[in-house]
């Protein structure tokens, strides 16, 4: 396996119906996927993640910039010479071949012995639970089964420098998805695979990736470990995209009273430390508009205001039980907040409650640029 380097890569499309304006699908993307690393390209549909992957695969031309696989610049190499294995959302199985032959195909092309082929296929089909359909043809399979066959075909390749996957488990049911997430991660570790994996599902990215590249509107928003993204989101987009239920946002302004600094709004007034206030002052924000972000799991609900916590009064709108936790929706003025509590809370819809959180759990963002204050 090998390292993949993406350096200042752009992708332009000429718009078909417009005034010849170019559409920028990927804007100046740079990141490195190290050898044996599991990297996720994460973002909503249309963010440029699939275009990026297709440029690495060689299925799309690179408009500008360079891509290196194992130190070799691959811009001008056709896909077959890039030493990559692929499993894409459209399965691209060979209809006349059985499942077994479909998976064996890349191995036969590389002149593996029959015994070796059998051994590889046994391992990968057990893992993906498709042993029982090996004799069937693709037309007879469900979408989920086809997806697993496509995945198996990508995983058996030993000579590949990198395995590229585009939403490989998105069509599967929740149960199987949960199982495959764990198994894929295991196999990636045990076989020492370098994987670049595209998904729109933050849970898939957080649970499998060593490194996540978050994209939106063609631009990379943040590159980091799952913990980085969750605990230190770089901007409002990442903060809102990572985590489920999503982070809550409240608008406010910074105010100074003597030596003390506060975040204020019609619904709250929270003291913040001097250091944070200074960082906010140097971040140019003439309108003094800020956004406070708080994760639903960092808020506690009570009948009284909690001392030394940041608190606000709110009204319970809905309670959503999710097994070991419940999500409580509350209203603060005209804003809606989500709060995650353990078990089932002893409150009812319509109740008036105090919501509180520790000051260190607070994320502060510049309302206009979206950038986090760190």
């Amino acid at each position, binding site marked *: 396996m090998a390292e993949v380097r993406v350096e200042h890569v752009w992708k332009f499309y000429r718009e078909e119906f417009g005034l010849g304006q170019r559409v920028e699908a990927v804007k100046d993307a740079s990141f490195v996927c190290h050898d044996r690393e599991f990297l996720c390209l994460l973002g*909503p*549909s249309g963010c440029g993640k699939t275009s990026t992957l297709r440029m690495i695969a060689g299925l799309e031309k690179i408009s500008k910039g360079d891509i290196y696989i194992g130190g070799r610049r691959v811009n001008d190499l056709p896909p077959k010479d890039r030493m990559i294995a692929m499993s894409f959302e459209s399965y691209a199985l060979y209809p006349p071949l059985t499942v077994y032959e479909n998976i064996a195909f890349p191995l036969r092309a590389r002149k593996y012995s029959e015994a070796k082929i059998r051994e590889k296929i046994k391992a990968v089909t057990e893992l993906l639970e498709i042993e029982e359909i090996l004799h069937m043809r693709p037309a007879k399979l*469900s979408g*989920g089964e086809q997806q697993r066959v496509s995945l198996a075909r990508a995983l058996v390749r030993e000579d590949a420098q990198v395995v590229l996957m585009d939403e490989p488990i998105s069509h599967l*049911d*929740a*149960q199987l998805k*949960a199982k495959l*997430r*764990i198994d894929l*991660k*295991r196999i990636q570790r045990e076989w020492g695979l370098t994987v670049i994996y595209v998904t*729109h*599902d*933050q*849970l898939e990215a*957080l*649970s*499998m990736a060593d490194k996540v590249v978050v994209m939106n509107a063609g631009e990379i928003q943040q590159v980091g470990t*799952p*913990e980085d993204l*969750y*605990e230190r989101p770089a901007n409002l987009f990442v903060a809102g*995209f*990572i*985590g*489920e*239920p*999503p982070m809550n946002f409240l608008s406010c302004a910074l105010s100074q009273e003597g030596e003390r600094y506060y975040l204020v709004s019609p619904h709250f007034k929270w003291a913040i430390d001097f250091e944070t206030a200074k960082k906010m002052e140097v971040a140019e924000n003439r309108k003094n508009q800020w956004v406070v972000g708080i*994760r639903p*799991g960092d808020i506690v609900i009570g009948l009284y205001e909690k001392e030394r916590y940041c608190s606000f009064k709110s009204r319970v*709108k*809905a309670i*959503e*039980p*999710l*097994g*070991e936790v419940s*999500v409580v*929706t509350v209203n603060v003025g005209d804003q809606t907040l*989500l709060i*995650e509590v353990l078990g*089932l809370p002893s409150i009812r819809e319509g109740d008036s409650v105090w919501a509180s959180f520790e000051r260190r759990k607070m994320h502060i963002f510049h309302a206009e640029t979206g950038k986090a204050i760190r």
Partner: protein
Amino acid sequence: MAEVELRRVTKRYGETIAVSDLSFIVQSGELLVLLGPPGAGKSSTLKMVAGVEDVTSGEILIDGEVVNYLDPADRDVAMAFETYALYPHLSVFENIAFPLRSPRRARLFSEDEVRRRVLEVARFLEIDMLLARKPKELSGGQRQRVSLARCLIREPKVFLLDEPIAHLDAKLRHKLRRELKIWQKAKSVTTLYTTTDYLEAFSLGDRIAVLNRGMLQQIGTWNEIYDCPANTFVGMVVSDPPMNYFDGQVHSRSGEIGMMVKDVFFLLSPSVRDKLQKASLGKDFILGVFPSKILLQGEEEAKDSLGTVVEGVAEFVELRGARKIVFVQVPKGLSFTLQLPLEASVRLGETLKCFFPADALHVFDKESRRNVLFL
């Protein structure tokens, strides 16, 4: 508002039994979720209630009236199909408005009222900017929302929603999950809803019916099911990661009845002990525990409760937002997953003292795989 009742309903397609002897009642205004893997019989059940599939045997009642032989149009139900079934030549607006314009209701709604209702439901489902488009110009997720909108725009006796948000992006799905519930409660229309996702089921369902291979496994509120899963299948589908299962035997140690798994003796809750008693000694059973119920020793809850400590090595840690999933391997061959808060610091290879509270342990019969409390 209407009550829906299924009485011993069976559906066969040739040799295949899709739904087997299914009975339940959906109360007026209730949202009942049918939860199960693909092929469990969820869609077939919905289609029989809608009247688009015949019932092989048994009866379906809406408001006390047997509807087996009523045409779909005469049942006053609205169904959102998984396959969307949109009119390709009509705009999104006209597709959604369609049910309001059908000949039976034409006189009921003015054009202004139709417009108001279409906009309301389109805004709710975030498709209000797509109203002028034709279905072929939409993505799969957008089509699914149009299909759902067309269903929700009416106020029929019963909503039948077949995996209505399954094909949406995770973010939107979770948001709509919360909002659908508020919508359904506000309209208080009796609803049957299918999903393969237990969180969706817990979140939306007033009650949940777990199905497998056409058969009802358990029906109840989410906490009834979560507190006491009826069999090993239910334990598997209502938790992610699924319930941990261990093969073991019932043993007695200093007069106390418990479960022996490998060489670990697990203490059980009084209700389970009463059920097992002496007659079960030495016999094989399955022990089950949800990953979220296993605690790290030292966590406050562990202090005064009855339970068993097992030491194991953290083999693998998976981050899931606010939670961490840890795969633990015990040297003697036992392995299990547990769920911890994000703050819990666990290093790979570290030895963990895991506390299994007695009242979180479920015991299942080895043969029938049923919870002994249900036997």
